[in-house]
């Protein structure tokens, strides 16, 4: 995508007609807006999703955010599949959230998270392409005065069969844009797909390599000032006072401003001047009661939940407690998983320009609509006086999805400097200490066997933090947080893959003051470690092979089993591994995809772990771009393995202790294992790709670590046990 600044603000569509068609009143259900809308260069919009220029360039509109995951290319593939256009002439652009709101949500949901980008918009995006195709063919047929049924279309060329006449999309787009969109255009049978399912190269690689892509932090606008901010380091604390006079004379400083009750920002000519002044600014915080909290006090709080009487039930059948009490053999283990920060490579930032008549924001966001909503609230202006221009994200991972605190801050800062664009860029330290952290939990697992070594009862007690209680209390179900049970629920997108005669999985909710958030994969990360490592413990206790033990419990879960079998077969499970190499398995269903991994590792005497290879399988139902899925799997392992080996946010005096990558590490290229991906779409459903596989890397490695050393590690990260990834 081409983004030229500051022309971004002029990318708004020119609405060619004030008449609002009846289709519009149906909102996003029929993806067409006012007739005829035009792109900024005057090219006609055939449907809300498709703009065609006279030179046959096809501009496909993408509402979801590209952040490296490839959704831009995947969604364009889906639209182009139905459009029957020349793929070499496809480009993409983002509609703005303000336009979407003004057009009754013509582009639907902008949210890019939950591995939903493709699986929840495939239908209307394909329909947008299919409808445009029918309109283009009709326009050509009308011009030739022939029935549309006599015309065929391929590669942006429309051909009238009987006469052999040909025309191109670009030549008929203007006329097509005036045709009333047909309703219910049928979509292709997946068996006939030509673009979907192909490992097509990404559309954004060239711009990425040439530096043409503009990330939020890159943005420069004429007359722009720079700002940086400090929130009270103790969550829940407030600003008591600050002495602006102490830094007012420093070079470049324009203004010192309070932002809400909790933060102070400095606006200066350059960012470094703002940062230097903010560092020098005396600020007194009212830290409040939370300043007494530490990691140890949080751990105590959670520990008490492990045996608490009251807990929310997430999955239950039979009577687990009785079965375990009467078991011939009992196995018990307690695991713990720490706070982790998203630590996106690009710290949070947004640029805002505010006047009494208009508020504009430029930012990276996983949800343009949410950024827009934050802009409305912070500016106090109506929707038709606000706009958000999405820029690329230097990492999202959930941090830029549900929380637009950085947008709110940027607008509140810009409001105190009316008419001047102000770029608010957080320091790395601010980004590390003002996260919305992966929630902290502990887990006690108890399994019971009968005399024949059959697993008769399993109790999984999770104790710890609920994300929804903090972020979306309206989504709680009678006080319970259903998201806590991702990966271990009886049915649905996060269906538990095992059948146990007596099962209880429950959650003692314990909510410390540290604000939790959705961290790539969310609660599957720790739940997969808990259940998949414990499955290995149970298999060991029963004296059975880890794969065979699982297979017995998975007979009623054939799709779960299929991916597990696939990795076992590819990795050679059951056959001797190379000298010094040990294997471990894990599987889970998450975000409606079935995933499994088999890790092969070796461990040197001084506890240095080399991951030789991870074989990973995923069944996402449909694979839109298998090459992109393979990269997503590898990318998810970077995140998942960094987390299990190195990443922990600890709390001291109510604040996060880690302030930079020196204490919050991420793995390096040399540490990256070989990843063999098996993409095995079985069809008939749509699963996500960005997140599911992240959760199987860690338990597979941990199980391999046990195979290698005989040691079970049950608290994380591994660096706390002197274990290093090499």
């Amino acid at each position, binding site marked *: 995508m081409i983004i030229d600044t500051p022309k971004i603000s002029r990318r708004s569509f020119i609405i060619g007609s004030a008449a609002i068609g009846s289709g519009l009143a149906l909102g996003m259900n029929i993806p067409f807006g006012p007739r005829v809308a035009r792109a900024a260069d005057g090219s006609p919009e055939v449907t809300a999703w498709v703009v065609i220029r006279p030179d046959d360039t096809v501009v496909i509109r993408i509402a979801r955010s590209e952040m490296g995951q490839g959704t831009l290319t995947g969604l364009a593939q889906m639209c182009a599949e139905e459009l029957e256009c020349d793929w070499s002439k496809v480009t993409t652009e983002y509609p703005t959230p303000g336009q979407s709101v003004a057009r009754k949500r013509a582009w639907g949901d902008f949210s890019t998270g939950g591995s939903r980008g493709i699986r929840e918009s495939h239908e209307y995006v394909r329909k947008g392409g299919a409808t445009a195709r029918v309109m283009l063919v009709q326009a050509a047929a009308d011009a030739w005065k022939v029935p549309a049924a006599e015309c065929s279309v391929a590669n942006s060329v429309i051909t009238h069969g009987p006469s052999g006449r040909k025309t191109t999309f670009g030549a008929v787009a203007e006329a097509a844009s005036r045709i009333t969109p047909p309703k219910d255009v049928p979509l292709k049978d997946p068996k006939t797909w030509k673009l979907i399912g192909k490992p097509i190269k990404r559309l954004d690689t060239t711009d990425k390599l040439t530096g043409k892509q503009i990330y939020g932090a890159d943005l420069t606008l004429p007359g722009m000032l720079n700002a940086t901010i400090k929130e009270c380091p103790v969550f829940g604390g407030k600003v008591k006072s600050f002495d602006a006079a102490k830094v007012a004379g420093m070079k470049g400083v324009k203004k010192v401003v309070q932002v809400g009750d909790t933060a102070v920002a400095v606006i200066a000519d350059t960012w470094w001047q703002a940062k230097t002044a903010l560092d020098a600014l005396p600020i007194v915080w009212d830290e409040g009661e939370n300043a007494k909290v530490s990691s140890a006090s949080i751990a105590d709080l959670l520990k008490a939940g492990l045996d608490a009487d009251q807990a929310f039930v997430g999955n239950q059948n039979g009577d687990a407690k009785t079965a375990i009490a009467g078991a011939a053999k009992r196995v018990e283990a307690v695991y713990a998983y720490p706070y982790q920060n998203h630590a996106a490579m690009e710290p949070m930032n947004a640029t805002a320009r505010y006047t009494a008549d208009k508020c504009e924001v430029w930012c990276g966001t996983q949800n343009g609509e949410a950024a827009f*909503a934050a802009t409305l609230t912070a500016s106090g202006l109506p929707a038709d006086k606000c706009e958000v221009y999405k820029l690329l994200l230097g990492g999202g991972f959930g941090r830029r999805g549900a929380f637009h605190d950085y947008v709110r801050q940027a607008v509140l800062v810009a409001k105190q400097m009316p008419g001047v664009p102000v770029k608010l860029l957080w320091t790395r330290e601010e980004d590390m200490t003002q996260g919305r952290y992966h929630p902290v939990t502990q887990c006690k697992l108890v399994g019971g066997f009968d005399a024949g070594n059959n697993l008769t009862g399993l109790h999984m007690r999770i104790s710890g933090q609920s994300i929804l209680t903090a972020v979306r209390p*309206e989504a709680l179900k009678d006080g319970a947080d259903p998201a806590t049970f991702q990966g271990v629920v009886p049915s649905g997108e996060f269906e538990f893959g095992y059948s146990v005669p007596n099962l209880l999985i429950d959650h003692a909710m314990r909510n410390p003051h540290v604000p939790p958030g959705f961290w790539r994969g969310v609660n599957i990360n720790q739940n997969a470690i808990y259940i998949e490592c414990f499955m290995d413990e149970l298999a060991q206790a029963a004296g059975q092979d880890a794969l065979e033990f699982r297979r017995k419990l998975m007979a009623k879960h054939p799709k779960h089993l299929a991916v597990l079998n696939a990795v076992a077969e590819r990795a050679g499970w059951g056959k001797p591994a190379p000298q010094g190499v040990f294997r471990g398995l894990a599987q889970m269903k998450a975000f409606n995809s079935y995933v499994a991994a088999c890790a092969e590792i070796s461990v040197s005497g001084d506890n240095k772990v080399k991951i030789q290879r991870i074989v990973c399988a995923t069944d996402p139902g449909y694979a839109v771009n298998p090459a992109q899925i393979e990269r997503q799997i590898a990318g998810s392992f970077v995140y998942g393995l960094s987390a299990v080996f190195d990443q922990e946010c600890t709390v001291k005096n109510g604040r996060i202790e880690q302030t930079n990558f020196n204490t919050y590490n991420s793995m390096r290229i040399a540490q990256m294992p070989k990843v063999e991906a098996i993409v095995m779409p079985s069809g008939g459903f749509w699963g996500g790709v960005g997140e599911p596989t992240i959760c199987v890397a860690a338990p597979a490695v941990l199980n391999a670590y046990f195979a290698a050393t005989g040691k079970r590690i049950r608290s994380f990260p591994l660096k706390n046990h002197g274990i290093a990834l090499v």
Partner: protein
Amino acid sequence: MKHGSRRQFLAASGGLAIGAVLPTRAAAQLARVPPNNMPDVIRKLVGPAPIKPGKVKIGLPPLVENGNLVPLSISVESPMTEADHVKAIHVFTEKNPLPETVSFYLGPRAGRADIATRIRLADTQTVVAIAQLSDGSFWSDSTHVIVTLAACLEEL
């Protein structure tokens, strides 16, 4: 028959502008919370009296980042005299667990029929305000609010 009764209610009430939420497959896919029985509850409260659009104005943002605390204002055109005043303002939501969100009872001594508060919205939905006047008539306004999805939140 919930939809049927809702449509009937809308028709009877002079067409509150809720047409934008006609269900289709795509919408159903994204609809995380099913509609409650708002039309029935409204009808129960109002009785057989007609509900006319007008006089009432809802102030709500068209979209909110989070439904936890949503600023709501409602004003009703009324001289607020003994003879002609607003007796009550009722707020209903289409997808909250309970449709009756809040009711305000007023009298001529209130001086103005303007209220402001914060409400919680469970999902993207329509909000309806109905004012009951001292002459027994009912007036209404409705608006649609988008509650944006949290990043990795999924229905389970």
